[in-house]
């Protein structure tokens, strides 16, 4: 009983800090279910009923259906390719040995520190010459480039800790390097890979600057850019803007809730290793 009483101030503090995070989010979620008349009544009133008109409005009239499709395509391709390449890179740097290994590794890691601001200007002109501006490739390829920089770091440090006996044993059994990777080490790598999947997904889904610059065709815009343009056009339409925000944030929050451990491990651990 005494120990419980001592915990109360702790929970009080945590709840206070948590509320500061949650209340603004809750406010925008409630706004998404209100009518414009209800918005005019003030921010603290509750919506009369759970109406999804604003979501339909944002989805169809606000073109969020297009934005959503773009985001899904760009994220899926980027994450799949980046994860696959990161596994190969990590395997090569962590297990294999080849000339120039350390130098190439160091060069790859620079990309992790370099912000997109430092690449977008020439990248735009480069992709323009290739005829890739205004295509999904203009979003996918640079995002892969930056993702695998972190992916190399992450997977290399995983493979360096992989048990040597397993690798040796698979050599005895006559596996080649490729089979060793996919038959012997892959089962162990799954948690590390899952962390990469959720991090890459979050980065790609939320990416803004690249998508803002590389794509002008409204049908190809991703969700964050679509939302930014939507709010530029309909500043006063708070309910629909709120609904749009939920469409943008919903999928990532869902993945976050399901894979919370991997997210936090990646963001904390990734930062520590970086």
């Amino acid at each position, binding site marked *: 009983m005494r120990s419980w009483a001592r915990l109360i101030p702790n929970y009080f503090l945590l709840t206070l800090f948590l509320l500061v995070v949650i209340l*603004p989010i809750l406010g925008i979620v409630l706004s998404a279910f209100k009518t414009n008349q209800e918005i005019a009544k003030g921010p603290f009133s509750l919506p009369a009923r759970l109406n999804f008109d604003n979501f339909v409005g944002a989805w169809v009239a606000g073109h969020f259906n297009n934005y959503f499709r773009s985001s899904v395509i760009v994220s899926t391709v980027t994450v799949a390719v980046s994860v696959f390449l990161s596994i190969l890179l990590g395997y090569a740097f962590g297990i294999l040995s080849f000339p120039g290994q350390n130098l190439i590794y160091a060069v790859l890691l620079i990309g992790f520190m370099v912000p997109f*601001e430092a690449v977008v*200007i020439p990248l735009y002109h480069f992709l323009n010459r290739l005829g890739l501006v205004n295509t999904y490739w203009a979003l996918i390829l640079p995002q892969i480039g930056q993702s695998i920089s972190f992916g190399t770091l992450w997977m290399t440090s995983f493979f360096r800790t992989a048990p*040597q006996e397993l690798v040796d044993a698979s050599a005895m059994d006559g596996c080649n390097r490729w089979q060793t990777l996919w038959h012997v080490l892959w089962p162990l790598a799954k948690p590390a890979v899952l962390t990469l999947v959720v991090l890459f997904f979050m980065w790609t889904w939320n990416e803004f*600057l690249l998508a803002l610059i590389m794509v002008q065709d409204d049908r190809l815009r991703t969700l964050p850019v679509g*939302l930014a343009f939507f709010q530029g056009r309909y500043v006063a339409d708070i309910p629909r803007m709120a609904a749009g925000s939920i469409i943008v944030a919903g999928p990532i929050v869902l993945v976050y809730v399901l894979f*919370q451990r991997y997210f936090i491990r990646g963001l904390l651990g990734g930062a520590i290793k970086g």
Partner: protein
Amino acid sequence: MNKKYHWPGESRFLGYLYILPGVVIYLLFVLYPVLETVRTSFYRWDGFTVNRTFIGLQNYRQLLIDSQFLQALSHNLIFIIFYSIIPIVLGIILASLLGRRRLPGMTFFRAGLFLPQVISMVVVGVMWRWIFNPVFGPLNAFLKMVGLNSLARPWLGDFNLALPSVGIIGTWVMYGFCMVLFLAGMQRIPEDYYEAAELDGANEVQQLRYITLPSLRPEFGVALITTIIAALRVFDLVYVLTRGGPGDRTLVVAFLVYRAAFQQNRIGYAAAVATVLTLIILLISFLILRFQSRSEE
């Protein structure tokens, strides 16, 4: 690293096959553009015409006397207070108050505090624009409700309040991250340290000063690098909330790069600003890492 050896009959270049696709994409879409940004910064170019004029360091010389750039940079430095210093102080305070005890339900609080980290900054911007909305926003409505009418402001439109208003959003995004980081770090510190300190008669403040804070040095490094880089790179929020206004009062370096390169067609100048931003970020990361590794010895 004795485990790295070649298998019988294996080419020593086998690794190249594994890294080739990734390295090619990286070279083309990351490294080449970075180097090209640096090269472009020595030219005057409008982005359309074929001929660019080599002007040496003139773009950089201009930065030193350019009030726009200096103003933008000073705003990023002020953001370090909001993105970095306040969240880290809050994180340390919370971590030291909660102590080392594992609380039931901590996973839940951790998940909630971390939430702003995963949401798109555009969504965060839209949300806070609503909060700051002078007519419909909850902030002014709340002030009126508690009788502080006189404090209600057009927050983002006010010349003096716009910058701290955008800054406080950075605090909102970052403090949960810092708290979770430091709480996780506290779990690592062996309990005997504190028991020994108590035997020696050290009070709680002394324990914080001599045990907790020094032990959390790696977490300080991570928190500083992550939050300072975030403060220096602010773009999405400013784009959504203010576009640098009113009157450049919330102009930040990344937005200046965007504006100069893609709206004013001053490509060389924008490249110089981008290069300086990247150098500052690399320098700060390097200094913090250096400080970390030295103090570990």
